[in-house]
């Protein structure tokens, strides 16, 4: 990194800003700041992830302000859009992933504790004893219900879902002898028989404006609902008023001694629990290790196969006298040019076990055709086969370029020494080619290490690995497995565990970077 001669301060940086320019800059900055403050305010008041996001936003805004107000930070003005995006969408997500990997964030643990307690406090129950009202039901044409309740003392009330109205409300019709309205505007009074018919529906409703909610207990009685769970901050426990059970917080879920839990839970830092699961729990480790190995094997063989075929074609067509050379190359480029999601899905059709043309051709020759989707080994072979088709043009392109850089006198000397074509390839072409395209091969490896599109379109990671506690498939690679953990739904989502696997991918990629860095020592000179 050391440069012997000091870089001269660039004198081309001149601040020939006009007054209008400065005003415009300040105005733009003011607008950005106003938006940022508004955003930060909402983020903070949202709590949870919003708080983290507000912090990131704050840092970015601070940086942008500094860059645009201080002349010595002039170069950063040019870099600020890129850097802001990098901080918000690369650096911050990486940190957030690292944090999430040490929590149990996922189904049942999606809220921060305060939010969970707020929601739990809203849960109500119908006490067995206490105040009771008599009630009369009304039904609208749309099927909504309203009730008129008469307490033993005091004024009656008209209640709709989420709404408490006074008995003097204009919608109330004339009262009968018992003081019950004959009708409510838009609603029709239920006869006793109709009440019986609708009782189950009505009793599911919560009438009145929260938190003073009234529910129908039976045909004759309605009663106010009460808050079911009372949180005691001192002991950090929750008491269930209905059953008098005590719930204690256990890894983000309030749990009673008999195992009963209160939903929703909240997320807590669980330390290395996710990693422990990954590396020591046999049920989790088994699929993980299979997937890990296949991820590497898949990327390695994809690069090896595509490179081999690519080099072969590049050498065969590396002949200026070959007629139609340009056309041949253009045609061979097409598999690479079509977006992979299209071609992989196309191959799904061609390899379809009974109906696909490739399977039918194989059947015609061998009598039967392997199942490229439900047999794990054939599924893997199928993926490599498709990858070869998708990727060889890229390798052919980069090798064609690199071949030009190999000096021809090397071959002449080899000819004189009597080396045959294969010896020349093995001892001259291949080593020099590898030097030239080495970094690109590493890049290709890293790309295929995370080639979600091919894996997911081909078979969505299937066939499934039996008895796995997580949705894992035989052809899943780490990133598609992570995707299934976070978004597959069916068996619940587990952001924490998914993030832990992302961290593993990071570590592997870091090793690749270091390796690639060796190829790019020349990089520093260009800095």
């Amino acid at each position, binding site marked *: 990194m050391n440069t012997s001669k000091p870089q001269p301060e660039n004198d081309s940086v001149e601040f020939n800003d006009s007054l209008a320019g400065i005003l415009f800059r300040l105005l733009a900055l003011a607008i950005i700041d106003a938006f940022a403050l508004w955003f930060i305010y909402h983020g903070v008041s*949202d709590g949870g992830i919003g708080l983290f996001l507000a912090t990131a936003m704050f840092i970015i805004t601070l940086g942008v302000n500094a860059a645009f107000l201080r002349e010595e930070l002039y170069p950063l003005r040019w870099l600020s859009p890129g850097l802001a*995006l990098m901080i918000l969408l690369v650096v911050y997500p990486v940190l957030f992933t690292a944090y999430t990997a040490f929590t149990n964030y996922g189904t049942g643990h999606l809220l921060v504790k305060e939010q969970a307690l707020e929601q739990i406090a809203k849960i109500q129950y119908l006490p067995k004893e206490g105040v009771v009202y008599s009630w009369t039901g009304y039904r609208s044409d749309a099927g909504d219900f309203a009730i008129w309740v008469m307490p033993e003392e005091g004024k009656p009330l008209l209640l709709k879902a989420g709404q408490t109205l006074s008995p003097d409300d204009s919608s109330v019709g004339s009262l009968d002898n018992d003081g019950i309205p004959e009708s409510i505007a838009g609603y029709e009074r239920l006869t006793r028989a109709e009440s019986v018919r609708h009782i189950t529906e009505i009793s599911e409703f919560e009438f009145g404006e929260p938190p003073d909610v009234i529910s129908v207990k039976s045909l004759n009685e309605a009663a106010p609902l009460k808050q079911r769970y009372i949180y005691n901050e001192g002991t950090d426990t929750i008491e269930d008023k209905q059953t008098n059970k005590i719930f204690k917080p256990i890894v983000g879920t309030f749990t009673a001694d008999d195992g009963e839990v209160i939903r929703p839970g909240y997320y807590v830092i669980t330390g290395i629990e996710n990693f422990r699961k990954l590396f020591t729990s046999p049920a989790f480790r088994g699929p993980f290790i299979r997937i890990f190995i296949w991820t590497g094997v898949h990327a390695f063989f994809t690069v090896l196969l595509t490179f081999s075929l690519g080099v072969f074609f590049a050498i065969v067509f590396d002949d200026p006298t070959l007629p139609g050379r340009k056309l041949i190359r253009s045609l061979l480029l097409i598999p690479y040019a079509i977006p992979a999601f*299209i071609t992989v*899905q*196309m191959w799904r059709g061609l390899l379809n076990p009974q109906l696909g043309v490739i399977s039918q051709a194989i059947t015609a020759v061998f009598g039967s055709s392997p199942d490229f989707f439900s047999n794990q080994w054939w599924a893997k072979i199928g993926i490599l086969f498709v990858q070869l088709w998708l990727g060889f043009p890229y390798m052919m392109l980069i090798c064609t370029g690199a071949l030009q850089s190999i000096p021809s006198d090397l071959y002449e000397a080899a000819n004189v020494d009597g080396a045959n074509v294969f010896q020349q390839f093995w001892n001259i072409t291949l080593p020099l080619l590898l030097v030239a395209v080495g970094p690109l091969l590493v890049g290709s490896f890293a790309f295929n290490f995370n080639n979600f599109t091919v894996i997911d379109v081909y078979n969505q990671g299937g066939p499934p690995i039996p008895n796995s506690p997580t949705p894992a498939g035989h052809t899943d690679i780490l990133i598609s497995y992570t995707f299934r953990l976070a978004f597959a739904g069916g068996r619940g989502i587990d952001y924490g565990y998914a993030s832990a696997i992302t961290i593993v991918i990071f570590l592997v990629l870091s090793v690749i970077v270091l390796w690639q860095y060796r190829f790019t020592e020349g990089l520093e000179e260009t800095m």
Partner: protein
Amino acid sequence: MSETNSFLGSARRQRQLKRAIQMTIAVLAIIYALFPIVWLVSASIDPRNSLNQQQLIPPNASFENYRTLLTSELHPFKRWMWNSIKVSTIASVLSVFITAISAYAFSRFRFTGRRSLLMTVFLVQVFPTMLTFVAIFLIVQEIGKIVPWLGLNTHAGLILIYLGGVMGINVWLMKGFFDTVPKDLDESAMMDGASQWQTFYYVILPLVRPIMAVIAILTFIGTYGDFLLPQIILQDKEQYTLAVGLIIFARQQFSQNWGTFAAGSLMGAVPIVIIYLFVQDYIVSGLTQGSVKG
């Protein structure tokens, strides 16, 4: 005399043999590369629309499948195409712009932390944005609570994520090109009274147009073909990009919708293939210098 003749003759024969082998390999290679595509084209004009009993030359060939697809209420294919083109175009134009100003700053200004920043940019690109998609999803979800038009299920949110990957190898690539433009040009422009911005925009930028085109095209292609992020961010069928829409469509009763899928595939692929074939030399130069597709 006769010895020389036979030597020349064998050399000619060798050349002919070599040419014959080359041509054979070329034909086989082209069949290998193009047969699946030809098969797809044939499926797209086969009105039976089924994977079953497909023939290379379909009887009663027609554009029935294309019509079905373009008029389908259930699968708004035109909408998906439009979404893909819209998102990819905006993302690539903005990317190129941000890449250009960043690369220019790295190329022309000397400031503290420049080297470490450049190194960071180089390292960061190894961890593509899509890897942290879980965090990205949660972040966009949260942003959406505050700024709904930038949240989940919006194209703006999706574009924002794509822009996150802008500080990467492309900045290096473009910086290399700016470095080849002599600084004298900047200096004389500034001498003539141009501001730094005017110098950049009117003098230097036009000189690096080819590399900007390459980066724009590769970004466009990469975005157009992305299957992961739109799947996470977009939830309504109307909002899908082509990649998500077409694959989700294809996953339903694939073998009965084979022809329609083929028609959709070809319509979706043609713009990209045309771009490739027209500017392949540029693209190759970009690819060999480390820019990636996707």
